[in-house]
């Protein structure tokens, strides 16, 4: 029989995996493009609401909506990149922050208008209801699914970055943009594709999140804080960093809420501040 701390650990890891899927896209695009995109979670929200609508109003299978959420968010991000983001790659941090916060604000308002401010209800697919008993622990099936999906995403990302030509181009552009361009890599296209992939993952994360943390128009901002914490703690442009930071933050948050409920979100903010002071570029960051 495993003590309850392992249950907390399991929940923390599952939560961390969700945060990882939400954050990894932002980390890579920040490291790659140095563009502070605070509208990242708005794309997540898009994926979430799309899934909720397809499942609730059109009776789609939850699993079928996941790739749709990914593609929709990716497509939306391409549109935004073309119209807005492209012009601000060389702009100041402040300008990027303000533009993307503006986009996030607008997304919150649109979501509230279309879907109301209440939490979106969602029916867990029958396959994922209930729990699996493991050494005395009750492991939620949905959470197991979440961990599974996140691991698949991680493997695909790592394989993609390390072993494909596109991945090599991304790595080159993260390392040294000017030189990559000099080598004939179409840096702009690399940006656009990476950005689309990252936003698509955010959309997927948003869809997956409904069951675990709920979905309402404030999602854009509440989870933005978590995502930003993970990205800065993990290090910009680092998949391993996002992974480690997501687990750290996920476990800290769940453990904090379980063992020290009076502290509230205090713990993760403190963790972030301390880590950033120790390693300003993040755990796995460069510079």
């Amino acid at each position: 029989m495993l003590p309850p701390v392992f249950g907390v650990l399991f929940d923390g890891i599952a939560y961390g995996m969700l945060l990882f899927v939400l954050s990894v896209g932002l980390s890579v695009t920040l490291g790659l493009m140095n563009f502070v995109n605070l509208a990242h979670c708005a794309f997540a929200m898009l994926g979430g609401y799309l899934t909720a609508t397809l499942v609730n109003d059109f009776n789609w299978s939850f699993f079928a909506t996941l790739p749709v959420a990914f593609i929709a968010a990716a497509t939306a991000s391409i549109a935004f990149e073309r119209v807005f983001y492209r012009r601000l790659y060389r702009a100041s941090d402040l300008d990027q922050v303000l533009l993307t916060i503006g986009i996030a604000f607008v997304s919150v308002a649109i979501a509230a208008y279309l879907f109301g401010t209440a939490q979106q209800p969602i029916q867990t697919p029958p396959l994922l209801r209930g729990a699996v008993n493991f050494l005395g622990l009750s492991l939620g099936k949905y959470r197991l699914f979440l961990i599974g999906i996140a691991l698949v995403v991680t493997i695909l990302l790592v394989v993609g970055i390390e072993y494909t030509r596109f991945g090599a181009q991304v790595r080159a552009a993260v390392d040294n943009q000017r030189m990559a361009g000099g080598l004939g890599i179409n840096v702009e296209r690399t940006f656009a594709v990476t950005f689309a992939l990252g936003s698509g993952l955010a959309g997927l994360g948003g869809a997956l999140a409904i069951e675990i943390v709920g979905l309402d128009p404030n999602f854009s901002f509440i989870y933005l804080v978590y995502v930003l914490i993970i990205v800065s703690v993990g290090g910009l442009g680092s998949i391993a960093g996002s992974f480690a930071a997501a687990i750290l933050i996920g476990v800290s948050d769940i453990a904090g809420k379980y063992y020290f409920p009076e502290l509230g979100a205090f713990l993760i903010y403190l963790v972030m501040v301390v880590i950033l002071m120790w390693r300003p570029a993040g755990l796995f960051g460069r510079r």
Partner: protein
Amino acid sequence: MAPTDTISAPQLYLQSLSRWSAIEIAFWLATLLPFFLFPNYLSLASQIAITALFALSLDLILGYAGVVSLGHAAFFGIGAYSAGLFSKFVWGEPFSGLLVAALLAGLAGYATSFIICRFRHLTLIMLTLGLGLLAFEVANSAHWLTGGSDGLQGVRIWPLFGIFKFDLYGYTAYSYSLTALFLFFLGMRRLVNSPFGLALRGIRENLVRMPAIGAASRAHIRKAYTIAATVAGIAGALLTQTTESAALESISFQRSADVLVMLVLGGAGRLYGGLIGAIIFMIARDQFSGIAPQYWYFWIGILLIVVVMLLPNGILGGLSKILARWRRK
């Protein structure tokens, strides 16, 4: 050797850069109008003056030193709660309350400035956000002290100079806040035109060049941050004293984000940008107060997008460009 009492041409030129213009004088005269034209809105006017002072303090670090802070409300809130607690446990004399608030907010600013000065870009933004959120959590959790989400109860402020009571009409409140705003504005104006102000602009214009001219940029940033925190704390104290209450809202991310929007709207780095931004933002919010918050943020969002894409230096920046073009004709 030129006699010491004549002033050289370069000196004159630099002096001319900081001369009071007619528009500025008109602006400050116009701030007296609410007393006569809008006597029913003096409480709102007081809030606007306080928010303008807060925006001014952010301009010092953002517009002049280039420090992007998403957590400046931490100092506003520290000032607000300090003044409230001071009136509750010591006495309700307002000026000493301001002093205490300034001291505590300034100390907090000084302490955190050692962290802030070492970082740039995303790390800096995240640190200011994190520290701001931490401050909020502390205020929230310490509800035995702050009243938590119910707000601080029992704040009683004595009449100014023993004579002028803070009442619902707002005459005292607006006079008090406006005077404070004006005095600190004068101080800020002096600072911005001083050698230190020049150094801050140097940091904003090109941080890399500063060490190459022998500048200790970090020390400059620390000083600016501490001053900004002190002024923000005073603004917070003013809010508490004029409304006889202190709430979590004063230390929230919302307030940090709103003041950032106001400053950018008006135009950062121009002293008056925060003031103009505060006036427009607060009046608009008051006019549209019936609308649900998310719709209000829809328009703020659109506004931000427009400002960044089309008016990168805010309203004042856009105006000065138009003026420059008109002058050339």
